[in-house]
């Protein structure tokens, strides 16, 4: 009986290995064909034109091999999906801003390495919980550092100074902080959630929810986000932090009031910010009606919508569209570029990948329900990916005001890519933890 059970497990594992391999091969085929089309279009079939694809293959193969060896019982969807999206991102950056493609390839290598380290290191989760205050402090210090030492890789003084520069390498502390913050919150909620869920005789649940113990951290978090908004003019990160926090708190407490009060606070902050900050006012105005200023302040969002319209259902094909009319297309507007050249089919594929990625993350979290820290960490990381993706996708489609966040795995940006891979590394690690009965 035992032998039979072992062979079933082995059969299932090898089946999953094969499934992951097939997904990677399909991804590789798609990426390879698109690189071929791009190189043919450029009439450049030199080895250097294939270098990015070569790096992708090496990262995929090596990552798969190492994960099979050291983390066999993991979720077998996560790695192929993020590699698929990353490969697609490499094509996009090579096509949109070739001068950044080499740097992005290096970041892919570093990020995959970081993901493997995080996923395979046995004490990752324990250290994350144990040293949460130190990590949070470091994260906040780095963030505060940008207020005084912040810079922008473009060198522009008027652009948001969200990076710390180390020679030719630039790092955005808010990317690291968002993971630290999720880990910190997961740890905090793992301790607090029993109180949130307890029915106390004589004390209403609403009153409990709005007690300083529960509501205090919400206000604290809101305050932190407002500070980021005020000092750094980083609307995207502020909303992202606050959104993840509220959603995580909702999952922990199960209270709809959290969602409502969170939403009201966002609206209140938004109204104040609209009055106080020209950048917020600009984004709101062009969101409400971009057309009168299509050639001026709303140029970027109008060009983005034109890209969606031009792509149609099938897209123009890689290198065949004109997405470069959108300023900073390789960073904030990579989703619009993708829609122009791969059409609605490409959009559906990317959204489906993100949805599968997030749903796998949430499944991993639910599997660890008996370990609150891991469960909240899984939910937090998944929500982080989902919210960030939604904010930029909806922003470039004019569903919500534009917030300058990157599209995970697809946009250009080393810090963002590194953070996104670390998130997957953590999810892989979580998925490999045996479920408690």
């Amino acid at each position, binding site marked *: 009986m035992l032998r039979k059970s072992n062979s079933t497990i082995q059969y299932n594992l090898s089946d999953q290995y094969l499934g992951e391999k097939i997904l990677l091969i399909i991804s590789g085929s798609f990426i390879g064909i698109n690189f071929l089309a791009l190189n043919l279009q450029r009439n450049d079939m030199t080895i250097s034109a294939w270098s990015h694809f070569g790096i992708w293959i090496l990262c995929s193969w090596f990552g798969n091999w190492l994960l099979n060896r050291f983390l066999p019982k993991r979720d077998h969807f996560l790695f192929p999906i993020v590699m698929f999206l990353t490969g697609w991102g490499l094509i996009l950056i090579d096509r949109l801003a070739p001068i950044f493609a080499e740097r992005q390839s290096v970041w892919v290598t570093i990020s995959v390495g970081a993901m493997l380290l995080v996923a395979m290191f046995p004490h990752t989760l324990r250290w994350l919980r144990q040293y949460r205050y130190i990590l949070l402090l470091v994260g906040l210090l780095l963030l505060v550092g940008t207020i005084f030492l912040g810079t922008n890789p473009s060198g522009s003084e008027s652009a948001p100074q969200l990076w710390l520069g180390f020679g030719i390498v630039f790092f955005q502390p808010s990317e690291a902080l968002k993971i630290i913050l999720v880990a910190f919150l997961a740890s905090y909620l793992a301790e607090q959630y029993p109180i949130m869920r307890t029915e106390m005789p004589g004390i209403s649940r609403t009153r409990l929810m709005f007690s300083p113990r529960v509501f205090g951290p919400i206000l604290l978090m809101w305050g932190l986000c407002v500070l980021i908004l005020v000092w750094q003019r980083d609307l995207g990160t502020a909303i992202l932090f606050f959104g993840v926090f509220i959603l995580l708190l909702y999952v922990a407490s199960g209270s709809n009031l959290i969602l409502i009060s969170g939403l009201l606070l966002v609206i209140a902050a938004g109204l104040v910010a609209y009055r106080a900050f020209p950048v917020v006012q600009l984004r709101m105005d062009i969101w409400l009606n971009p057309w009168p200023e299509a050639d001026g302040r709303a140029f970027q969002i109008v060009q983005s919508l034109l890209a969606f319209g031009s792509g*149609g259902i099938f897209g123009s094909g890689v290198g065949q569209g004109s997405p470069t009319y959108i300023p900073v297309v390789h960073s904030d507007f990579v989703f619009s570029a993708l829609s122009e050249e791969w059409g609605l089919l490409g959009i559906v594929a990317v959204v489906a990948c993100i949805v599968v990625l997030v749903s796998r993350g949430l499944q991993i979290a639910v599997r660890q*329900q008996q370990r609150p820290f891991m469960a909240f960490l899984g939910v937090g990381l998944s929500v982080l990916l989902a919210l960030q993706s939604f904010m930029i996708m909806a922003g470039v489609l004019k569903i919500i005001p534009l917030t300058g966040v990157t599209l995970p795995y697809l946009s250009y940006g080393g810090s963002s890519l590194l953070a996104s891979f670390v998130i997957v590394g953590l999810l892989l690690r979580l998925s490999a933890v045996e479920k408690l009965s």
Partner: protein
Amino acid sequence: MKLSLEVNRLATGLLIAFSVVTITAAYWAVVGPDTITQRQDNPRLVEQEGQIHRGDIQDRNGTTLVTSIENSDRSVSRHYLFPEMNSALGYASLRYGVSGAESAFNSILRGDDLGKDFFDQLAGSLLHRAQRGSDIRVTLDLDIQKTAVDAFGNFHGSAVVIEVPSGAILAMVSLPTFDPNTLDADWEDLTRADGNPFFNRALQGGYQPGGVLQTPLLAAALLADYPIDNKLANVAEPVQIDKLTLRCLETPLNTSLSLAQSYAFGCPFPFENLILNLGSNRIQQAFKTFRFSEPPTLPGYVILPADETNQTTITPTSDASDYLANALGQGRITVTPLEMAVFTAAILNDGNAPTPYTLFQIHRSDRGQWIDAIPSNTTIPLMTASVSHQVRDLMKIALATGAVQAMQRSELDNVGGHIAVAYTGDSTQVWFIGFAGLQSNSGVAMALVLESTDGTDQVAEIGESILATAISKVK
């Protein structure tokens, strides 16, 4: 700990959010191509337009005049190979549109007129094939055009040469002109340049006719059986119109000449006599018969409406001198070089005005052979054959014995013409209309006008060189 419910709700909320993203993207993808992407400020439209491979333009002998070259960025540049052809061919610019032949045959050159079946369209769309237009061959002749432009030198003005009896335009010159290869860069300067280089004088130039109306007046006299051979005393007598004094182009040695004889010397007095004797109604009727009220058009080209520029009514007003001024070509009547060229062609063609055209053949990019695009040969009778023969003979005499010495040296046979001066304010233009015949009613006819000069010798020299080249090319 049980989180399933909240996580499920969260997952549902996220799923709805991503569905909204997908539905919105689908909305723009489906509705966008017919709405938002058609906005005038969509740079993709310009880019798409710039990738259209316009067909080549060749002259009647197959020499390529204009060609399209694809650049590395997939945009297509238009190259105009002969500066002499510029005024006739116009320009095609992404920024400033099209003009001239480029405008007249725009849909053919762009390929808009090509009916494509479903599979062709699908293949074109999937393989991102740029739209490719047809090549065209125009009736213009590079050699004649070159001769004309060279002969003009620094003069401003216009010339139109027509093949008779077909009506094919062999040359169409308008000077000053522009270089379409550098149009985008030069545009601002060109719009401020003297002489308005964008103005196609051959088709749009409403010139004062002056003495060039003597030929139609002669034809009107013949149609009315007016005695043109009766001698008149002192034909060199000047004619006064307001402050303007009209004189013979060259005073004849013997001033007792008939109307027919004085025509060669461009004397206005006998024509004043004719106008007063015939009366306004008969002259007006004759001008109507000659179609001066409906000047010829060139299919596709921009020609200003007759009712705005070509004033053709010579009905006397209360002021008698106004009527006389109009009939003598010094009033409100204006004519274009094309109009006078067609009238001259009618004189060579037994009184029948050919319909002018410039499109000769079309070559579709996906087909092997050239297909004729010549319009059906319709002519408009302007005068009887006998009247046209008489006028033709008088024009031959005018060149042989008349005011213009330069044309008397001509080695051309069967050539006739008339030179005239017109006055506009302080400026003077000099006209030449003429023909060179081959046999019967075939040959070439032309009209030529030089601005800001009264140099009859120069106009005669230019006219002669153009006629000589043109007749040698159509032989």
